[in-house]
């Protein structure tokens, strides 16, 4: 429902939308696995995977903001 970025690219960069989708979902899945595993186990790999999930979700947020920003405009 937001205004179109342009006639050629009404939704902004489709690639960035896909990037947002994959970054967020892979990040969330990684978190679902690594957060409880880190609490239950002692292997450092789970901590690193949790940090990786944080990075992926953070990037998803930033890419979403960057791609939406140009669509927030007056008529």
């Amino acid at each position, binding site marked *: *429902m937001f205004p179109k970025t342009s006639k050629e690219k009404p939704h902004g960069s489709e690639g960035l939308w896909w990037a947002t989708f994959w970054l967020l979902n892979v990040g969330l899945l990684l*978190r679902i696995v690594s957060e409880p595993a880190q609490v239950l186990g002692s292997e450092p790999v789970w901590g690193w995977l*949790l940090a990786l999930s*944080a990075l992926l979700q*953070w990037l998803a947020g930033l890419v*979403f903001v960057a791609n939406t920003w140009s669509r927030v405009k007056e008529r």
Partner: protein
Amino acid sequence: MPRLSCWFIRSALVHLALGFTLGGLLLVQKGLPLHLALWRLLPAHIEFLLFGWTVQLVMGVGFWIFPRFQRSRGNEKPAWLAFGLLNLGVWLAGVGPVVGAPALVLFAGRLAEVGAVAAFALHAWPRIKPPGVR
């Protein structure tokens, strides 16, 4: 999109980016403990995402799409006041505890947020109407 909605939504996006950044840091802290002091960012993370992003996006979109009176959106002043109060409140209530501000700052922030909700309701109330009703 009206000008005020642009302000609301852009501010919401800024808070989303800030909230995600703080949340990312906190999640890294969970996995790879960097510094315990990072947990002090938690109130700001919650405040930025709950009020700065979610509530602000709702207000911005609501101001934009609620039914209008012919072409007018009615009295816009309370909605502008809501924008100012909400952002003031988010920063007072979110950043205040992080920097160790007195409890009065947190209270002032919450008061500003309540004021923002009241001001927005004052603006939006007459616009909640069936189509055709003036």
